[in-house]
């Protein structure tokens, strides 16, 4: 069939295809061999450093660093003014590493904008870089250096730089003939060859390796290749012999011998995941060879200098004029397109073609598949094969076939078909010459859509990225918002536009798309020195909490304060307030607070705990005399120790209370001063602690001490209501057991609280005898209760009967125990019966 015309067989089962991706758009004046080059994997950009090797630095021939897309479209270029570059390489995030002779590594983005640099250490600086390799592992991007002293240094992750010096080589006299970085059991090691010896170097040791099943006539090693996933190693010797095996050197996968003795310029693995065939591609100046564990090999003639870029499922080959992809034909494609294939997919494709021609053969083919019950497999095959094709026409015909076949299936989940259509659409879009990212389906799946979007953003291809997000219906936060935010961060760096223009342009595009952080964009604008723009952008930020820190950083504290208050987050308000306190002078600070009551009350709280004196100033400013009075009262307790100090503080309080027109508080505080003075005197006279007792307790203590005169004096001086004084006096007398005084007191005049309290207090202090004296004087309504209290149930019963009160009778009854108080019980029952009769 037409599609397999460019297939080249290797062994029985596998075919290799070399197809053109792009004809290169670059128009290079010089030969590629005169440039230092690096092409990033996953269809990444190509960096060229021209004139690098010229010794004379005349202005016309200064080195130039140029970066191109994989299609050869220029992205950026700069004149190279730094030191001698030994090696270029790309990081996993598509930054360019320029490794200089002195061991310093400069990092540029793909628009040739300098990002940062780091050094590979002193030893490298002293001995210079002889050779270098950039490699990728799960830890990130690493750099390995072979120094002029024939030692290895490496860093596994340039974003978390930890330099490692490897163990010395067995011979330091001459450099190894070839070497490579291996990644085994999460450790980076170096595989190197000198002559016929092979060594594995790690931090602490150097071990000689022997590849199993190596031909005894193999000879000296010239070249080595490590597979994309670090699992396999291939070795090329000066006898034209190739050994292929696992990187652990435990297993041999195959060998091949050719008659070419010339050292190859490059050798890389070319294998697709899960393939049975293991093959390497070897390149000389004008010849390309694909060799596997087979008798024969595939050979191509090269018309010009070509360079190999290993990918996970094949090899890209680029030259001055073209960019090609060489890969093993995947199984599904083989099944369908192999000449005379009877595989279900092939038949389905044919059926569909016949259907389009309106030929009845369509039915025959279809029936053949259905008879073998292979229709679902056929559809699957067509869908899968479509993914491996670069030509949209071929993709379409395969998908049409799949869609056609699907019609005859009852149950076939449409998902795989739809997904493939979507994926191919994305892939075709990015493979476009203008975009120039020639990802294969397998690479795309490995890379993931998120990373692909990042890469489009890196290339500033925002519209395409957004289209893809929308097309794939990615959630806004993951997709569109993220891209818009990147775009906006880029936009604020455009210095040729006015703040107003930029802010508006950004808001127009971003609106209030969920997940957009205007404060982040504003932060970027501020970093670029565009404070005004940053403030404008912050206006669009709905989260005031996010606005505040940046506003503070930009010294817009008052604006920050109102934003903080808006947010309701008091912690933010505090933060701004304390910031303002340091920034402004006191007067200004207070004025600012004055206009923000929320901030003011929070600051008051702060002062209450941290600096009470400021509190006074705050109240003074507002003429808040009530609070000032309270403040002084507080002071008299908390900070004044001497009596004079306390009185003075209280006197201040009195003044303030008067100003506040709080007569009550002023009078009360005056009373307090009076009491304090009296207590002070009492304390000195009686040598007992009186200070800070309440008036009540002071009098009580006096009575307990028998100082009835003085107690009386206080009672009058402080105008204590009679009732309270009587309660106080009898309680205190009972407490000290001065029953005589109590009786005297009870007769001094008519009790304002009646006599029941006397009874109660006596009973409380277990003096029934005294209690009984007062029970008789209790007013009639309370008599029952009084007699019960003193335990005279008989009299209680009489009183109750006299009142004809049933509830009182029950009360007494409840207190009676039938055995002892039988007569009382009988009396009560009789009276109750009488009431009931009536």
């Amino acid at each position, binding site marked *: 069939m037409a599609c397999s015309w460019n297939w080249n067989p290797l062994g029985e089962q596998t075919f290799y295809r070399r197809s053109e991706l792009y004809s290169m758009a670059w128009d290079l004046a010089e030969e590629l061999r005169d440039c230092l080059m690096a092409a990033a994997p996953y269809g990444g950009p190509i960096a060229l450093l021209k004139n690098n090797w010229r010794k004379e630095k005349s202005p016309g021939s200064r080195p130039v660093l140029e970066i191109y897309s994989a299609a050869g479209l220029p992205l950026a270029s700069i004149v190279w003014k730094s030191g001698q570059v030994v090696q270029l390489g790309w990081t996993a995030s598509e930054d360019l590493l320029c490794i200089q002779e002195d061991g310093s590594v400069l990092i540029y983005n793909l628009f040739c904008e300098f990002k940062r640099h780091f050094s590979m250490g002193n030893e490298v600086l002293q001995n210079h870089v002889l050779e270098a390799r950039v490699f990728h592992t799960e830890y990130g991007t690493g750099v390995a250096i072979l120094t002029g002293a024939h030692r290895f240094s490496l860093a596994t992750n340039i974003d978390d730089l930890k330099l490692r010096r490897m163990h010395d080589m067995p011979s330091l006299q001459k450099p190894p003939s070839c070497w490579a970085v291996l990644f085994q059991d999460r450790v980076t090691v170096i595989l190197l060859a000198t002559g016929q010896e092979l060594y594995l170097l790690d931090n602490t040791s150097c071990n000689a390796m022997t590849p199993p099943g190596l031909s005894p006539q193999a000879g000296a090693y010239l070249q080595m290749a490590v597979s994309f996933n670090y699992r396999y190693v291939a070795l090329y010797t000066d006898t034209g012999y190739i050994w292929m095996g696992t990187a652990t050197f435990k297993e041999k996968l195959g060998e091949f011998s050719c008659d070419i003795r010339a050292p190859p310029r490059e050798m890389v693995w070319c294998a697709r995941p899960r393939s049975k065939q293991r093959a390497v591609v070897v390149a000389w100046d004008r010849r390309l060879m694909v060799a596997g564990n087979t008798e024969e090999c595939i050979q191509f003639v090269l018309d010009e200098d070509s360079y190999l870029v290993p990918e996970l499922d094949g090899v890209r080959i680029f030259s001055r004029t073209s960019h090609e992809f060489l890969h093993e034909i995947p199984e599904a494609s083989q099944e369908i397109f192999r000449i005379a294939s009877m595989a279900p997919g092939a038949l389905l494709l044919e059926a569909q073609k016949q259907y389009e021609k309106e030929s009845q053969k369509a039915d025959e083919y279809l029936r053949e598949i259905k008879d073998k019950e292979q229709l679902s497999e056929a559809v699957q095959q067509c869908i899968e094969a479509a993914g491996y094709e670069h030509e949209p026409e071929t993709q379409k015909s395969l998908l049409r076939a799949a869609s056609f076949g699907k019609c005859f299936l009852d149950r076939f989940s449409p998902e795989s078909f739809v997904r493939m259509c979507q994926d191919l659409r994305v892939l075709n879009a990015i493979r476009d010459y203008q975009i120039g990212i020639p990802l294969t389906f397998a690479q795309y799946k490995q890379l993931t859509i998120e990373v692909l979007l990042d890469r489009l953003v890196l290339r500033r291809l925002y519209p395409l990225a957004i289209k893809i997000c929308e097309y794939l219906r990615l959630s*806004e*936060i993951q997709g569109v*918002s993220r891209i818009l935010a990147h775009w906006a961060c880029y936009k604020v760096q455009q210095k040729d536009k006015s703040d107003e223009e930029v802010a508006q342009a950004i808001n127009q595009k971003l609106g*209030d798309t*969920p*997940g957009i952080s205007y404060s982040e964009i504003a932060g970027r604008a501020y970093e670029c020195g565009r404070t005004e723009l940053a403030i404008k952008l912050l206006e669009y930020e*709905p*989260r*005031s*909490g996010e606005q505040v*820190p940046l506003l503070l950083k930009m010294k817009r504290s008052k604006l920050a304060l109102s934003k903080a208050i*808006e947010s*309701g*987050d*008091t*912690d*933010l308000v*505090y*933060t701004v307030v*304390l910031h303002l306190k340091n920034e402004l002078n006191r007067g200004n600070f207070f004025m600012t607070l004055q206009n923000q*009551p*929320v901030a003011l*009350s*929070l600051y008051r*709280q*702060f002062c209450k*705990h*941290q600096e009470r004196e400021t509190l006074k100033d705050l109240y003074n400013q507002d003429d808040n005399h*009530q609070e000032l009075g*309270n403040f002084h*009262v*507080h002071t008299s*307790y*908390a*900070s*004044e*120790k001497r*009596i004079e100090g306390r009185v003075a503080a209280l006197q201040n309080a009195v003044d303030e209370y008067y100003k506040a027109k709080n007569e*009550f*508080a002023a009078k*009360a*505080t005056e*009373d*307090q001063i009076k*009491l304090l003075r009296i207590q002070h005197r009492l304390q000195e006279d009686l040598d007992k602690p009186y*200070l*800070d*007792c*309440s*008036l*009540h307790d002071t009098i009580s203590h006096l009575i307990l001490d028998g100082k009835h005169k003085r107690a009386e004096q206080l009672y009058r001086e402080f105008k*204590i*209501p009679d*009732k*309270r004084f*009587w*309660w*106080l006096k009898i*309680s205190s007398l009972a407490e000290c057991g001065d029953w005589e005084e109590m009786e005297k007191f009870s007769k001094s005049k008519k009790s304002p*609280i009646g006599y029941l309290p006397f009874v109660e207090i006596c009973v409380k202090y277990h003096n029934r005898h005294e209690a009984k004296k007062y029970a008789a004087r209790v007013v009639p309504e309370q008599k029952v209760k009084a007699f019960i209290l003193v335990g005279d149930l008989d009299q209680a019963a009489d009183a109750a009967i006299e009142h004809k009160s049933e509830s009182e009778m029950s009360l007494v009854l409840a207190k009676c125990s039938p055995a002892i108080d039988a007569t009382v019980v009988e009396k009560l029952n009789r009276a109750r019966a009488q009431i009931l009769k009536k």
Partner: protein
Amino acid sequence: MAAHLSSGRVNLTALREAGRRELREFLDKCAGSKAIVWDEYLTGPFGLIAQYSLLKEHEVEKMFTLKPGRLPAADVKNIIFFVRPKLELMDIITENILSEDRGRSPQRDFHILFVPRRSLLCEQWLKDQGVLGSFIHKEQYSLDLIPFDGDLLSMESESAFKECYLESDQTSLYHAAKGLMTLQALYGTIPQIFGKGECARHVANMMIRMKREFPGSQNSIFPVFDTLLLLDRNVDLLTPLATQLTYEGLIDEIYGIQNTYVKLPPEKFAPKKQGEGGKDLPTEPKKLQLNSAEELYAEIRDKNFNAVGSVLSKKAKVISAAFEERHHAKTVGEIKQFVSQLPHMQAARSSLANHTSIAELIKDITTSEDFFDNLTVEQEFMSGIDTDKVNNYVEDCIAQKHPLIKILRLVCLQSVCNSGLKQKVLDHYKREIIQTYGYEHILTLNNLEKAGLLKPQTSGRNNYPTIRKTLRLWMDDVNEQNPNDISYVYSGYAPLSVRLAQLLARPGWRSIEEVLKMLPGPHFEERQQLPTGLQKKRQHGENRVTLVFFLGGVTYAEIAALRFLSQMEDGGTEYVIATTKLINGTCWIKSLMEKLEPAPF
């Protein structure tokens, strides 16, 4: 272990689980053995989220209380401070860190976990002291609403009321709004928000704002709550002042319930075993956890205390009858069945014994004359009798120097029930109080005035009778045994706050516009848009779920009243309750008192 949280209409276990997950994730960030230094206030609330066993599983080997000075020696790799973001605490931590022995090896790693939120202020404070760099992980643990029971959430923020109404510090409201956002993230956007009061308005505003701040986080959870009702405590200052008369309410009034635990005098719980007559009575207080996980407690907690006795005696009969069954068990099968029920029966028996003891303890108090007199006065005030004159009982109590808080509760109650006191009456009370209890209380009285609990009658008009009548706050024919109205929780008084919730559900607040205007603060309604797919199609007979959030605290009696409404057959609404703090009149007034201690001479 947390079954009581999933018993209600809304499964609150999810909230607790979210809390546990967050905690585990943080602990695992600090690899290796750990010691936790606790802000003491947090231990209680944390206990409701995770027991010590969970911490232990994550290599927490030691626990200390945060205090000044040097940290205790502990051979652990990590020291983690669990603290509220308060500057006073930052000072203690600073001291701890600065006195850490630099020479000790191996060095201990420090981490700090802010609860409920990281604070720039505190971090700046630590930075200024030069210790911020000592912390490897600085994180926050958003413990806002803690599930207490199947229908009860609390922030346990002790001073929320004081901060909001006295100090205009709305920090706790911000946390409340955040907590509500977390709740909505787990249980769906609440379509309707009602509110009454300044703080309620503020919280609703913040919620709406926060929602706008994250437009992308479109919530796709089917809403569990239909309505949120935000109520300021100062809309109803009366209710917490009155003595709660439900079983749970009385336990809290008398012994204080802390984070679902109560400590009781041990005498009544002495094990009654023969032959141990000479043994000393236990002196440690008896600590019991009180929640709906205990079947009997769930049944009686919300009853009027007068109705508890009969339930207990009925239960006693059922249980002893169940134990009697063993004599009838003849076949092996029957015996086996009996044995399989034994653990449950024994648990029921010990639960019954505990609650019988508690009920006895409470009964001793409720039957005392003083309790009765106090209650009588409260009820007189609430029903509007003689609220405008100096009350004799209050005067007598002051004269006998009864506990100050009791006096303050009564005086405030009178003031609230009279829309403020006549200046003469107010001044008399104040004078009596400061003369008896000390002049320093002038500041406390001032606080009560600022909070509106105690005030002079300014307008000359007493609104309370109108409010009382319109909202039917006083019910003369209260049925304590088989209640038909919420007023049973205070034996006559129907809590105003709950009445508002009840009237909101049916017939709606429009019917009481006039009264709402008399109560402080604005009342409002907000709607939160739901995506069309999430709008509820109510099944016939399915109840609505309303979340009532009390800003400034809620009492157990109010909770009981809301639960009563949930259970009403034709109620149509079930309630979940959230609050800044579970309170009773005593601890509430205490939080408003100014603590002034004179300097020693």
